[in-house]
């Protein structure tokens, strides 16, 4: 086939195509298309890696897979199908996670170039770092519905994947989820947690029972609770005092632990004891626990109190849903009555407990993994979320919508993937011709922009952000956290691994040579429960963090920042590349280039592991680190207040595109963040999707082809 293009390609490009070795990370929608394009162009040394297996919902676009392949390895089948048409190509496949230590620096260095076709940020971050470390060009791509983008990442030449801060994931305070939900998403998150409590991996942060440490329950002004450690005990005493006899029956014990959970037989243990009896589970979750919440009567002074439900008398009528009720729909899009939710709950519990039992028979201690495409798992979450919504007087949602929200579903179609994969391989030609400067980022838009463009290229390759905490010559970051509260374990897991995407970090206190976290097992476990302060990390301490696997070293300066109050939606810690970002927004000069605003598609998130992610619409940098618009009585500090003001203004603008009216608001926004301008003037479609009141996540790519997420253990038994 190279023969047919002999006239079109220069001789050097033809040779480069024949001789190069390329890696495709991800064999999903874009990955399949890229593989086909490469094979058709004459590439003959291709490796492809994907952790995932084929799901029915992949078949509408991942054309190398057919129905008989469901359940098999994506990478293996992609290779097999491609070879049936083109047996002469050398293709190596790995059914594995790219973040595994088997794929280290020397693995990446084998390749002339790497092409990402991923669906989650963690894996993208990881491949980004590996390619920077190996100095191999990386083509990053993604699609979301009709939109997509392709960009080159090359050390020293272009922005890396982490040069511009991505929106952080939205988290909800535990007590909102457990005690006082007010939006459908709160109920959906709760229902997913419940799934894990009953059938999945036990995570103490996902407790679903009433949170007795809710400071609000003590009936004091929140302003009193800035130092919540002081108050926790007070709260406990009062709560215990309130404990009504009815709610304290049976499984409920009166002892609280330090996390605010009432100690008791674990939810799982309890469910097992009653043999997953749907009625008993229902009564505990939707009657007894609610009654218990009602007893915390300070919570309901200003709120509508929840209504416990009785299994024998479930309302049969269909309550209104927040979605257009006129819209005709799939079965999936119809609103369920609570009675129906009850029966769906019953059936799902029966099937899931059976599935759990089956999988534990083969490997004891194993558990199910929530999967939005598993009918029972999804039915369970939809039913529980709606029942809970009903109890709290929150609008119910259809199963279809709940699936979007719970699964962070990114719509995906064959056409967009085909277009984007075409552009990826065209970028590959330029790289092989050493014409990297021509690899401008390209954005595919749903609609023409004002210049009648459907496909919008950048004017030039975006240069690296000199302050990037990943690709700068000496990467630096600032961690603002409460050193008296944060433990070493939290530093390791929440900050370094979850937030900074490291795989196996080593941490040393600069100047002292004390190793506080070691990637070698058994060396520093003793530090786990100590606070940062206890091991000598204070305001101004500099940490040398190394991840040998990623060949990534980062210098972290610690800033003392008081832990926010429990009800505050701001995160426990902030991490920024530039401490300027911690200052009020008015003072920020943004490092992001304005040119990125010409139609950039939201980079997408994991779809399985997280609850929800905000889109990048609002001001970049530390936006996610600013408390949400919520008004707090407690004036925290000036910095935060100023930020809030600006953000509120921008929120006005997100909903609108009225320009003349809001000059004033814009002025604020413009003076603050030049990069935001176009974003404000061209509101993005995800903000106005009728059914996404909780921003659905748009990530670059597919929903399934997780060639990464190391946590993924086992699919549900089907």
């Amino acid at each position, binding site marked *: 086939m190279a023969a047919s293009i002999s006239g079109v390609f220069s001789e050097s490009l033809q040779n480069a195509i024949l001789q190069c070795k390329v890696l495709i990370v991800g064999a999903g929608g874009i990955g399949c298309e890229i593989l086909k394009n490469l094979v058709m162009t004459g590439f003959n040394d291709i490796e492809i890696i994907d952790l995932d297996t084929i799901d029915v919902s992949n078949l509408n676009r991942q054309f190398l897979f057919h129905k008989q392949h469901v359940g098999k390895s994506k990478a293996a089948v992609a290779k097999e199908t491609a070879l049936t048409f083109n047996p002469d190509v050398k293709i190596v496949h790995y059914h594995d996670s790219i973040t595994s230590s088997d794929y280290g620096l020397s693995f990446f260095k084998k390749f002339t170039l790497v092409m990402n076709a991923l669906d989650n940020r963690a894996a993208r971050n990881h491949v980004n770092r590996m390619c920077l470390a190996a100095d191999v060009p990386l083509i990053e791509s993604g699609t979301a519905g009709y939109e997509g983008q392709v960009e080159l990442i090359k050390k020293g030449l272009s922005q890396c994947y982490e040069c511009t801060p991505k929106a952080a994931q939205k988290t909800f305070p535990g007590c909102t989820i457990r005690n006082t939900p007010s939006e459908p998403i709160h109920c959906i998150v709760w229902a997913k947690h419940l799934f894990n409590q009953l059938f999945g991996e036990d995570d103490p942060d996902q407790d679903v029972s009433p949170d007795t440490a809710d400071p609000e329950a003590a009936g004091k002004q929140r302003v009193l609770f800035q130092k919540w450690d002081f108050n926790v005990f007070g709260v406990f005493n009062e709560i215990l005092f309130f404990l009504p006899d009815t709610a304290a029956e049976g499984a409920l014990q009166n002892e609280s632990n330090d996390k605010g959970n009432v100690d008791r037989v674990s939810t799982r243990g309890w469910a097992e004891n009653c043999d997953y009896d749907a009625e008993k589970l229902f009564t505990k979750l939707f009657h007894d626990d609610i009654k218990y919440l009602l007893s915390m009567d300070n919570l309901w002074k200003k709120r509508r109190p929840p209504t416990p439900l009785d299994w024998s008398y479930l309302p049969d009528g269909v309550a209104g849903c927040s979605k257009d009720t*006129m819209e005709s729909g799939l079965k999936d899009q119809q609103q369920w009555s609570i009675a129906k939710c009850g029966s769906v709950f019953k059936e799902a519990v029966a099937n899931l407990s059976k599935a759990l039992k089956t999988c534990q028979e083969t490997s004891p201690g194993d558990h199910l993994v929530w999967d939005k495409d598993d009918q029972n798992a999804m039915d369970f979450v939809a039913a529980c979320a709606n029942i809970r919504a009903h109890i709290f007087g929150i609008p119910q949602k259809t199963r279809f919508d709940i699936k979007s929200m719970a699964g962070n*579903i990114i719509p995906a179609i064959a056409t967009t993937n085909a277009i984007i994969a075409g552009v990826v391989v065209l970028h590959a030609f330029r790289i092989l011709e050493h014409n990297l400067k021509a690899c401008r980022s390209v954005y595919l838009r749903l609609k023409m922009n004002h210049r009648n463009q459907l*496909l919008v290229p950048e004017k030039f390759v975006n240069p690296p952000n000199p302050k990037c905490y990943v690709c700068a010559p000496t990467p630096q970051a600032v961690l603002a956290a409460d050193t008296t509260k944060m433990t070493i374990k939290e530093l390791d897991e929440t900050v370094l691994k979850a937030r900074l995407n490291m795989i196996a970090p080593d941490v040393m206190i600069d100047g002292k040579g004390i190793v506080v976290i070691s990637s070698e097992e058994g060396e520093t476990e003793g530090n786990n429960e100590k606070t940062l302060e206890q091991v000598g990390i204070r305001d101004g301490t500099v940490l040398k963090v190394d991840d040998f696997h990623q060949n990534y070293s980062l210098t972290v300066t610690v800033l003392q920042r008081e832990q926010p109050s429990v009800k505050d939606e701001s995160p426990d810690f902030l991490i920024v590349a530039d401490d300027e970002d911690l200052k009020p927004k008015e003072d920020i000069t943004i490092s992001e280039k304005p040119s990125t605003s010409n139609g950039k598609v939201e980079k997408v998130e994991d779809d399985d592991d997280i609850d929800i992610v905000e889109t990048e619409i609002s001001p970049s940098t530390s936006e996610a680190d600013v408390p949400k618009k919520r008004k707090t009585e407690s004036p925290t500090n000036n910095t935060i207040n100023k930020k809030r003001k600006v953000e509120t203004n921008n929120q006005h603008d997100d*909903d609108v595109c009225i320009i003349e009216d809001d000059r004033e608001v814009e002025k604020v926004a413009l003076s603050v963040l030049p990069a935001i301008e176009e974003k404000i003037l061209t509101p993005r479609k995800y903000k106005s999707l009728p059914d996404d009141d909780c921003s659905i996540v748009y990530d670059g790519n597919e929903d399934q082809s997780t060639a990464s997420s190391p946590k993924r253990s086992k699919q549900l038994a089907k």
Partner: protein
Amino acid sequence: MASPAPKSPEQSEKNRKYDRQLRLWGDHGQASLEGAHVCLINATGLGTEILKSLVLPGIGAFTIVDGKKITDEDIGANFFLDSESISKSRAQVATQMLLELNPDVRGDYVDEGPEQILSNSPDFFNNFAVVVATALPEKAIILLSKKLWELDIPLIICRSLGFVAHIRVQVREHTVIETHPDNENPDLRLDKPFESLKKHMDSINLEEMDLKDHSHLPYSIILYKYLDKWVTEHGDLPKNYKEKQELRESIRSGIRIDEHGIPIDEENFEEAMRAVNTCVSRTTVPSGVMEVLNDDRCINLTAKSSSFWIIAKAIRDFMENEGLGLLPLKGAVPDMTADTEKYIALQQIYHKQAVADAEAVWRRTLQLLRQLGRSSDSISEKDVKLFCRYAGDIHVERGSCIADEYDSKTTNANEIAQSLENPESMMVYYVVLRGVEKFQAEYNSYPGEFDDHVEPDIVKLKSCISKLLGEWGCGPLAKDDYVHEFCRYGGSELHSVSAFLGGLAAQETIKFITNQYKPIHNTFIYDAVTSNSATFAF
């Protein structure tokens, strides 16, 4: 349990398979797709790429028209062909391969060229939803475009040549109900409340409410109350930023305070203030919609009028009568911080009115059908409801016949000439592509197709181009590079360019079939060397 347990809703295999796309075009979009039969002319690499992106999402059926036998070159350009298929019918093998991609799809082929079919069986094309053609010679383009223009069937002509991709969409008239606008403002009618809404609003007294109710009132009610007050005081809606800001402040003043004088956290009031921009404006009929409703096709229906125009006319009649000058109510209420009872009460009011409006339009539709002597089931109530829901954003696309571009009297020579004056314009690609077509027609090969002919072909191609430019009254091209480039391509197809264009062409086909989203208007050109692209309207 109180009622017999209904079974868990079954999610059919099909719904699961199409889940990710149903979220884009809905089940009615999917139904349209599954009911559509498309025709592909020439199963080139590009052609199969296009069909692949239609077969995967589940097009109802396809027919391939292609009289050619498979050559070495096809195997190099088409992923689905292997060397064993050489000299077999290209239409037949491609059909088989594509059918394997999705068992829900039906497909057949005709082992003849399009020109043969056009002369032998002129009715052949009558029942296709869309016809897509690749690698079509000039003569066939003209014949086919005239025929399909006459039949009022959309035609998409695509060409993948070296690093250049070109797509031309021909549609006589295409009506779009769901345009999926970027920002759809809620249709709350706060300035012109319908009777039941006004009654509901008037029954609510903010001052007398207890705090719990006060802070759980849907924001639109708050907005209505303060807007009402504003209008009483000022005689009109707030018009500019300053006035809207004043309205916001007046809403802010309604937030209750606690015993310490500190404003209480009333999220619904915050929402009301935020909604001032989107919800406080005069309810009118958008000018684009007015244009459609005043179109001759709307006003003067005929027995052959499409459902779109009949419903449009029904809406027009509705507006002039019971609609009091406004479109039917959308009926959707945005999410609001509120308790369920109050939210649902409000939702019901909008919902009922929307149903009533849609019913009125439905009755008028039936009346029109009767007058036109059409059966009453030729339009469903569901279609009318959908139309009413999206009436504020409907779009009518009117295109031009491709054949007109091949006649110097009817082509848009001005546009070409003007664009060529701009050295940045991609119009030059169009000119060279037309030159290549002319070259093909005259010499029966692509310029540069044979290695030893490249130099003479450059001269010949230049002369083809000058002839065209002369016909259009344009001066010569500023630079020759493009001519050299196209001769270097020698008519070969780059798979990645075809993959790109295949996705794009399939996307346009789906837009036509689902009547969702506005199509490209009407020529798109992409240069894969520079990543630049442009659209032109001929």
